[in-house]
């Protein structure tokens, strides 16, 4: 029993068409809003106080990014490969409206070994502590590591500090910090 956008047709009597019409009304309501495990999905139900508003929105993987041609019309939120993307209208002049990732596959809030989250644009950001001279390998591994910021963590905050990147690994350097000294760092990489 599914919704049929091609009924009622002309010839059959109302007695025949009545169940078809009823099916459409019923199916529209159940597809518009569904409940599973106490969670309402997609829209608030018809005849509810919030009817027509959204509840838990399920976004299907659309595989390819939608096209937006109208320069002033709308922005699109959608799912490609399990991540939420956003695409804004194309500008009248200037750059194209390249799709932009809003999320990343993982977030590490455990701090083992480092904390990790993401920035819009498919960037991964890492925070933690690093010992002078000890290479730090990041997880998840970025395709490219583009910036490392570090500061003295305690004690003499005038220690000099530099960073060297090699692939997805970085090392903090200092001339005057003692061996074993820990610096705080923030690193940003590309997914």
């Amino acid at each position, binding site marked *: 029993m*599914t*919704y*049929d*956008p*091609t*009924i009622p047709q*002309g010839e059959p009597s*109302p007695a025949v068409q009545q169940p078809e*019409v009823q099916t459409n009304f019923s*199916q*529209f309501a159940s*597809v*518009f809003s*569904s409940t599973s495990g106490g969670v309402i*999905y*997609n829209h608030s139900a018809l005849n509810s106080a919030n009817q027509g*508003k959204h509840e838990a*929105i*399920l*976004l*299907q993987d*659309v595989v390819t990014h*939608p096209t937006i041609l109208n320069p*002033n*019309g*709308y*922005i*699109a*939120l*959608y799912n490609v490969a399990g991540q939420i993307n956003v695409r*804004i209208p194309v*500008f009248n002049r200037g*750059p*194209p409206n*390249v799709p*932009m990732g*809003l999320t990343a596959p993982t977030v590490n809030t455990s701090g083992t070994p480092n904390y990790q989250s993401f*920035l*819009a*644009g*498919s*960037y991964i950001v890492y925070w933690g502590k690093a010992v002078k001279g000890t290479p730090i390998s990041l997880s998840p591994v970025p*395709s*490219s590591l*583009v*910036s*490392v*910021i*570090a*500061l003295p963590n305690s004690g003499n905050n005038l220690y*000099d*500090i*530099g*960073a*060297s990147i090699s692939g997805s690994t970085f090392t903090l*350097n200092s*001339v005057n910090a003692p061996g074993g000294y820990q610096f705080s760092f*923030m690193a*940003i990489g*590309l997914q």
Partner: protein
Amino acid sequence: MSIPINYNPNIPRPKDKFNTSQPQMLQNFASLYAAFAKNHVPLDATNNPGNHNVIELTNQTEQFQTSAGEISAYSKTLPSKALALFLRYQGNQSEFSYTNYQTQIFKTPNVNSTYVTYLPGNMICYFGECGNVGYVELKPFISKNLVTAIFTRLGTNLSGNPPDITLEKDSDGIIQKVLIDKFFYFFFILTNA
């Protein structure tokens, strides 16, 4: 884009003959189907009918009202002219832009490059690695105020002091460059637009 004027919420009327209301109901069912399929898996799909394929948010000019227990998400134009996703928390709290300028066009993984993204609330983040050219260009040029600028020297030659910075702005007060001394640096610069 043409505006469909097919759905009629006022049919059938009590004294209409069936051969009058039948095509009207057919038109309404077809219109509901087409409108719903614009952002959703179709009503008659075998799998996942009613889920969203995409959420298209049309440009709004006013803040949405939010009751207790609601968050509204909508699109609105930023001062930079970019259309952005805005959020407003429950109870009509202050709205803020969740997204900002598109950023991935600037994601060119080259040495001496500047990358850009944003944080919710109209904050712009520039980061990357600058060569010993004496400045970081804040492109796209939409930043009005420097919030913070942090630099870390690149490599093992650490002579000299942390950089003194000055700003180069255009006639509209938009920051073009953060001027620094000529060393190689990693940087993280936060502005608002």
